[in-house]
């Protein structure tokens, strides 16, 4: 058994060191002394760990264990053994390295007895709650549950950070006279997004079998729940997930606002603020959960065998095609297309855009890494690698594509390329092998440059390249799962087209209605003056003198 083997190997190693240091006889005596102490420590600590891990991994093999979405089942025996081996190595090495400073063994024993007595006394004072009863005698399960839960929470916080990234990218790639407006839209979207998701979206997207129209549409409702009693216990069972209901909600809520933020960048510098707020709210509340439920809520796309790991289609293509619909109804910014020529409207801060993309990259570790839906060591690290490699490959590919096509390496294209690679790998981050992930990123990086130039050619004005990055590369990434990952090509094509068309058509209706009722565009005068003054009566940089 691995445990004995490691223990023997470490003991032999320490024996050799001691013999070398102290001579043969004294070394053997010292080793024997050490051996006793190791055995005692092992009994106290490592065997405890082994004892609690073993029944857990046996029981998880017997029952269904955690949701089949994770790869936990297959990995537990290996990770269990590794954990024991690791703990044992620590136990063996620590006294060997520091035995000179340690108190005599008697002192340790007395101390630990004292600690145990105090704990028992403290527990006796209050009756255990239902949650405490649920975990009683299942320390290892509780530990694993806590680790899983904590990782998804950290991932949720990382996805929240992506909204700072979006804010920075969008304000960097637009003019300084519209910065307050761009930032305001980002603030609104993240605040609104999480609240409407709590009020309606979460339960509409994850109906748990309670469909209004089977597999296609479910009504939403506010999230409910308690942190104590039977309800809290139900949220802790492996029937739910290897994390709590609250964790599940907050992770998904951080995703929901992303779809509207993608639209926000594409329509920047000319959309009326109230019109954007109304349209974005309708889209995030009602539309995003519908196509989301088709796959992640186990609707018709999931039945079809469609694969979208973290949302190349469900989040990014959805946002990208809604943005396309909005831009088509809105028209180009004034001065972008004059006399049939493309006149660039320069972003006002390349450093800000770069900071934004790096923040988005950081957040993507949570976006994809959290979508493992557990802290499974193998899967989370694998997803980190595929995600990062694809993002870097996308950045390089877009750099060189712009260098070749445009004669100069364009920073904004390189930044778009990093995002394109990340969007591309999002659907298959858990199933596409690392070098195929690089290929997915490279193709996304080339695609995004060509796509940005093509949209300019057909007079679709997208200041930040959101339609190309999220829409086109979202499609590509989803199809790539059919080529290099765990999906079937035809199903992938059907799935990504279905969501893209759904998003485009419904966004066209929403923005069309808003246009008819409220109007979409600010006046030409306001556009020239800047939306900061026009919509907000504020400046982003008071006293700032622009270069023009």
């Amino acid at each position: 058994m691995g445990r004995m083997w490691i223990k023997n190997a470490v003991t032999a190693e320490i024996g050799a060191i001691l013999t070398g240091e102290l001579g043969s006889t004294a070394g053997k005596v010292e080793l024997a002394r050490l051996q006793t102490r190791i055995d005692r420590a092992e009994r106290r600590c490592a065997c405890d760990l082994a004892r609690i891990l073993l029944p857990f991994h046996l029981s998880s093999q017997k029952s269904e264990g955690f949701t089949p979405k994770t790869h936990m089942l297959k990995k537990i025996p290996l990770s269990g053994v590794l954990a024991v081996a690791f703990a044992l190595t620590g136990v063996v090495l620590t006294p060997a390295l520091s035995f000179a400073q340690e108190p005599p063994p008697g002192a340790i024993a007395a101390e630990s007895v004292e600690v145990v007595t105090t704990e028992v006394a403290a527990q006796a004072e209050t009756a255990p709650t239902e949650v405490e009863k649920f975990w009683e005698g299942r320390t290892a399960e509780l530990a694993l549950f806590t680790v899983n839960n904590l990782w998804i929470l950290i991932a949720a916080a990382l996805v929240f950070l992506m909204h700072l990234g979006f804010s920075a990218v969008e304000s960097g790639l637009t003019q300084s006279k519209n910065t307050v407006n761009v930032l305001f839209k980002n603030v609104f979207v993240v605040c609104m997004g999480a609240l409407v998701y709590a009020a309606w979206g979460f339960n509409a997207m994850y109906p748990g079998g309670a469909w209004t129209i089977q597999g296609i549409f479910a009504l939403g409702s506010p999230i409910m729940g308690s942190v104590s009693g039977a309800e809290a216990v139900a949220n802790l069972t492996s029937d739910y997930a290897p994390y709590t209901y609250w964790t599940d909600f907050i992770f998904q809520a951080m995703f929901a606002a992303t779809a509207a933020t993608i639209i926000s960048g594409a329509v920047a510098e000319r959309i009326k603020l109230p019109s954007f707020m109304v349209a974005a709210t309708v889209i995030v509340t009602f539309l995003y959960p519908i196509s989301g439920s088709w796959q992640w809520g186990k609707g018709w796309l999931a039945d079809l065998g469609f694969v979208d790991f973290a949302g190349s289609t469900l989040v990014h293509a959805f946002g990208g095609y809604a943005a396309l619909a909005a831009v088509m109804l809105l028209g180009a910014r004034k001065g972008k297309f004059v006399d049939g020529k493309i006149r660039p409207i320069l972003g006002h801060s390349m450093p800000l855009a770069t900071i934004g993309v790096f923040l988005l990259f950081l957040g993507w570790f949570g976006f994809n890494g959290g979508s493992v839906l557990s802290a499974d060591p193998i899967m989370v690290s694998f997803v980190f690698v595929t995600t990062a490699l694809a993002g870097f490959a996308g950045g390089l590919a877009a750099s060189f594509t712009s260098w070749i096509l445009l004669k100069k390496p364009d920073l904004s294209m390189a930044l778009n390329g990093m995002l394109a690679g990340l969007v591309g790998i999002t659907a298959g981050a858990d199933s596409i092998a690392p070098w195929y992930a690089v290929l997915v990123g490279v193709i996304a990086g080339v695609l995004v440059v060509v796509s940005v130039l093509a949209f300019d050619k057909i007079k679709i004005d997208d200041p930040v390249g959101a339609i190309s990055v999220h829409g086109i590369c979202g499609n590509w990434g989803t199809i790539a799962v059919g080529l290099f990952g765990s999906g079937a090509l035809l199903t992938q094509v059907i799935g990504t087209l279905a969501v893209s068309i759904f998003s485009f058509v419904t966004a066209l209706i929403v923005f069309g209605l808003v246009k008819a009722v409220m109007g979409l565009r600010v006046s030409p005068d306001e556009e020239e003056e800047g939306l900061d003054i026009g919509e907000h009566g504020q400046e982003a940089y008071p006293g700032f003198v622009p270069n023009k």
Partner: protein
Amino acid sequence: MKKIEAIIKPFKLEEVKNALAELGIEGMSVTEVKGFGRQKGHTEIYRGSEYTVDFLPKIKIEVVLADSLLDSAIAAIVGAAKTGKIGDGKVFVSPVEEAIRIRTDETGERAV
């Protein structure tokens, strides 16, 4: 008294300032300006679309000095700012009627 307005390349400012300081000139005003002469502008590219930048960044130095210092100051500026390439800039000289030091009410050459 005379006023020298010199339009120079931005990275030549330090050398010109030092050359003037060596002559004992104790003050000057400097402004970042944009403009073009025979050098004209250049084209830049943003997300695949080219555009021309007509106004290039330059530095304008303004120095007011006594007539006696004029020739040596001009020589110092021209000597320090010259690269021999197009876009080195220009020097303009104009008469100044009066100068007043606000703190002391001194006037004329004593004030510059």
